[in-house]
């Protein structure tokens, strides 16, 4: 069967469009951990806890939809601790805190060596999320939106 001319035209269009992208390279993946994307300031990442601001109101533990935040008794106070195995990063605890004792960070490299390390009692929780360890200092990348390429990764 001989294909219609319109079919041949559409075939050619598809092939030419495909060929175009051989030359217009638009890589959309990042070579983690050699390259790390810097997340924006308002990213809902791991949570930082300021123990000195905390008034032990328990609101964070009560709103937590995943039972990740639990109150522990430290001396005479009740202070929150977090279980990162349960946390779903909804950020309700941060938003409900009346004293800004909880804060978002833009860290989301959630990797630990042991299970126990992920259950953080108030003291550990107040130390903040750990700084991710890389074998070699990674290249920091920011994502920019671009009219011609969509996403563009730029070195900072």
């Amino acid at each position, binding site marked *: 069967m001989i294909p219609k001319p319109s079919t041949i035209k*559409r075939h050619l269009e*598809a092939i030419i469009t495909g060929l175009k992208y051989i030359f217009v390279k638009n890589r959309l993946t990042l070579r983690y951990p050699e390259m790390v994307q810097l997340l924006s300031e308002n*990213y809902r990442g791991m949570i930082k806890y300021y123990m000195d601001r905390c008034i032990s109101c328990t609101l964070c533990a009560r*709103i937590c*939809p995943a039972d990740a935040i639990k109150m522990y008794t430290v001396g005479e106070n009740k202070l929150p601790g977090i279980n990162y195995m349960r946390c*779903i990063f909804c950020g*309700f605890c941060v938003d409900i805190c009346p004293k800004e004792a909880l804060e978002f960070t833009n860290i989301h490299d959630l990797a630990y060596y042991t299970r126990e390390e992920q259950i953080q009692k108030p003291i550990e929780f107040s130390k903040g999320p750990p700084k991710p360890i890389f074998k070699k200092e990674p290249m920091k990348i920011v994502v920019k939106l671009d009219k011609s390429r*969509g996403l563009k990764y730029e070195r900072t």
Partner: protein
Amino acid sequence: MSEDKFMQVLIGPQHPGSGHMRFIVKMDGDIISEFEPDIGYVHRAVEKIAESKRYIQIVPLVERPILADTANINLGYILALERLLGIDAPPRAQYLRTLLAEINRIHSHLYGLGIHGIMIGSSTIFMWCFADREIWIELAQELTGARITYSYMIPGGVRRDLPNGFNEKLSKAIAYMEERLKDYEKIFINNPVVTARLIDVGIIKKDDAIKLGIVGPNLRASGVAYDVRKIEPYCAYPEIDFDIIVRKEGDAYSRVLVRFEEIKQSMKIVKQVVEKIPSGPIINESYLKLIPPKLREKAEQTGIWKMPAIFINLKPRKGEAISRVEAGRGEVTHYIVSDGSPNPYRFRVVTPSFRNLIAFKYTMPGHRLADIPAIYGSLDYFPPSADR
């Protein structure tokens, strides 16, 4: 001949074959004579768990079944809850809700288009869709702080205001996407390999579509102009100009086209939203005054609002409420029964995938085995959403 001429083929429940479900197919040679979808493999009892949660804690929970379209299902739940609480979101919040719902619709459609592409063997379109989906996820992340599970809408408003420079980023994304969609047409939509696989395959006639009760783009591809955004407008939709995409053919190809055109319509809506968005508060006045003044001042500068402590103990009036929302895959219905306590007495979600599921049983018979992926993909079925 006896019954022996039929062969039973089980497809799935391994994920690469069929998603989180099993198809029990009765084959007559290469022709499907009976097709039975067997669902429930990812049932997580979301509705029952909701009965033990506080109203605000259900916000992240309802998102879990439909991860590709979290904003719309979140919106439906919040609308039903607001009806029970007897409050309303201020106009600016309504526009922000529409904005996120449409950004989510775009990346949900790209997800569906990409999965369909790989199902019929076009890995190019799969890569393209998932790469371009990243742009919309990046925009949503800018607005909400999360990539997929936004939990952005709360009773009486939204959590965050438009960040600085968002409009500029959005216009760049739209400009890119409009150009890019032309290439989509050339490499996928008009590609003779694709049209050969999809045209006149899996036809759902208009009457059948209505009788089966399917929803969303699948229904509109069968010639029924039904869209909750037009029929029962909510949020900012009454003030926004957009068209319902309808096609008459009802085949797999027309369903792809409806989704493809809806991406363009959603971009049209998003453009209007950022132009028309009114200024003002983003949380209802009655909740706004409960936020400590110091935090309120700070929130006005940063645009990231705090929640009032009352959210833990939301006690809606005794009664029931229902809401309908047009999600990416179709109409989502939320039904809440309240007995006046801080937990719902009964919670029910009817998801679009559950309503579209029946289409498999009546569309597949008569086709060849190789047509299963072509039809399955075109229905944009999402098993976790049906199983809940």
